[in-house]
């Protein structure tokens, strides 16, 4: 890893600079709504991309894990909701408990599904996600359909309506930390072994590596990361209900990951940004309105965009970017073999 200037790095540093200066460059609405949402959706998406790119496991359960964190946090810190536990404890205790419980659940689910990869893994994690959704819808002890309201960010960060930039910078800091952590992890012996497990589980197993343990730990780590996104989500939204983690939400995060590209972690934030922009601006394009695509039909539109991306560029926008660079003959952008997941989730 020399200090060479590559197109990837130029774009990366530029994006980081814009992100840090965003409150000066963009309107408060952009920062407090669009960009903050982009950051936490990007974190959840990154947990999915990490599993897919380095473990060969495409998980739809990330939204369920982020929801578990949100519901635990909501139950622990609020007081006065009609449903839920209403414990009213310290907000930071809620954060710790939420993350710990979601990570523990992720380890359990990971262990259960650790003998599967690919589409089997996709199906199994989809059932986990839908079951979590139904669980919080039915069990009024913890939520019920109305969900939990009035979840405030702790003093120092919130109230979010008064200090929107604080939450934005927290989300940015967490995003950078998550990105750095993932970049570091994939270079550790564990990360290398995980990629070996992805490419050839039988060989890794005969070399003495515990395949199931590696997959389980990777799923636990991804669950931990998704739970960070969950904390930011409930602070931002102030409310969580089962609809926040329904099948549609699971697919939205999958769309984010696929738009960005299932092969590189940074793609998740790019995918999240595009998703959020589409969500907010596409319906207001009058041309689309005139052919019957209004705010109500947003999901038709996002479905079509998703379909086109899968058909045209299986590796998402990052894939398009890499192909463009290759076409321009910039062979220097070829990254070290370590994080060029060739045999990952073949989309």
């Amino acid at each position, binding site marked *: 890893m020399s200090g060479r200037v590559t197109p990837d790095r130029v774009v990366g540093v530029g994006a980081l600079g814009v992100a840090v200066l965003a409150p000066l460059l963009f309107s408060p609405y952009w920062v407090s709504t669009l960009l903050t949402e982009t950051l936490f959706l990007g974190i959840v998406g990154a947990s999915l991309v990490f599993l897919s790119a380095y473990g060969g496991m495409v998980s739809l359960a990330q939204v369920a894990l982020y929801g578990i964190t949100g519901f635990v946090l909501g139950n622990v810190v609020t007081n006065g909701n009609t449903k839920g536990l209403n414990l009213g404890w310290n907000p930071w205790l809620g954060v710790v408990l939420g993350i710990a419980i979601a990570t523990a659940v992720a380890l359990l689910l990971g262990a259960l599904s650790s003998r599967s990869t690919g589409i089997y893994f996709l199906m199994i994690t989809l059932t986990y996600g839908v*079951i979590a959704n139904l669980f919080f819808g039915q069990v009024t002890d913890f939520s019920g359909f109305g969900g939990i309201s009035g979840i405030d960010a702790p003093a120092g960060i919130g109230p979010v309506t008064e200090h929107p930039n604080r939450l934005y910078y927290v989300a940015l800091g967490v995003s950078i930390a998550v990105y750095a952590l993932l970049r570091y992890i994939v270079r550790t012996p564990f990360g290398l072994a995980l990629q070996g497990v992805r490419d050839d589980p039988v060989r890794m197993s*005969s070399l003495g590596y515990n395949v199931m343990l590696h997959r389980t730990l990777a799923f636990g780590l991804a669950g931990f990361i998704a739970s960070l996104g969950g904390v930011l989500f409930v602070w931002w939204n102030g409310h969580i209900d089962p609809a926040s983690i329904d099948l549609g939400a699971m697919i939205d995060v999958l769309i984010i990951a696929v738009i960005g590209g299932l092969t590189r972690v940074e793609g998740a934030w790019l995918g999240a940004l595009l998703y959020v922009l589409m969500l907010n601006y596409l319906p207001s394009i009058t041309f689309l309105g005139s052919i019957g695509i209004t705010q109500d039909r947003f999901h038709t539109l996002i479905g079509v965009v998703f379909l086109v991306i*899968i058909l045209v560029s299986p590796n998402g926008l990052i894939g398009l970017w890499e192909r463009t660079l290759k076409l321009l003959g910039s062979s220097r952008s070829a990254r070290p073999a370590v994080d060029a997941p060739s045999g990952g989730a073949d989309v």
Partner: protein
Amino acid sequence: MTSFALRAQTLKLQRAARYAALGFAAVAVAFMVVWVLFIGRGTTFGSAVHDPKDFLITLLNGITAAALYFVVASGFTLIFGLMRVVNMAHGAFFLLGGYIALTLQRRWVGQGGGFGLTSEQVNLTNWILPALIGAALVGFVGVAMQQTLLRWNQGQELRQALITIAISIIAADQMLAHFGGVAEDVAWPHKLDQFDNLHVSGIIYTRTRLFILALALVIGALLWVWLKRTRIGMVIRAGVDDRQMVSGLGINIQLTFAIAFFVGSALAGFGGVIGGSFASLAPGVDGNWLLNSLVVVIIGGMGSLGGAAVGSLLLGLTTNFASAYLPSNYTYYSIIFTFVLLAIVLAVRPLGLFGRPA
């Protein structure tokens, strides 16, 4: 430590974990059976020994629910078994079949009152014909999707799954636009919307549920005969084992794929008509039925018809017994048991009860 010794230790650990899982699963299942049969404290009906009538009704409810699960999931498993396509749009196809039948029935018979048609207004053909047309149209939609989007991506399993997810999003949103967000149901024919005295413990049972069970048995038998006793079934089974060899023998495997996709999708559509008559059609129902199909095939083993039958039975019994035999203050926890069932099977047999490695 050499890697060989490490490997041996890992194997030993894995085996120990497997036995632990098996033991735990056996104890859990045994406890649940004993609970339902003899204890049942705090439940609505009490234990089976104490109240055999409600136990039998729950058992029948479980079996008839399983019948509908089987109709839908058998289509899913047929498509997967032959083409390795996980059709994530299966739930959307279910809903589409129901809505088509609903529209046809109302065009034919009339709009009915504020709550739609009642069974008195509907005779047997008014139900069967829309049901068959709905199933067939969904079958054609399935084939269209397979030919235009999936065929040229053959072998790219994940990409195909993502394509069907995209289709399911678009389909669900379009159905919301055309059929609205209000729950509606297809009217049963008057002849079926009756109660039968079973002459066992004085149980009076709904005829529609028995009809669903009969339909599932007929469909299961037809599928079995089709797959095991006909030429095309033979080709399908050969295709499941070795696709390339089958095409190498000069058989048009693409035609076989299209037929299997038609039948698989039509079964989802037909299931949707039954489900729409039995319960109702509304946005979100598609997700629940995708979940049901996935759970059934994960439990039973992907691509196995017998597995789909056993998986349906286990899921149907689990959901019905869980909601009937949990202590009455906790019945809303019943969804946990779907997960427990899934977890037990995955821990003991990761490929499902009848699953084979690909």
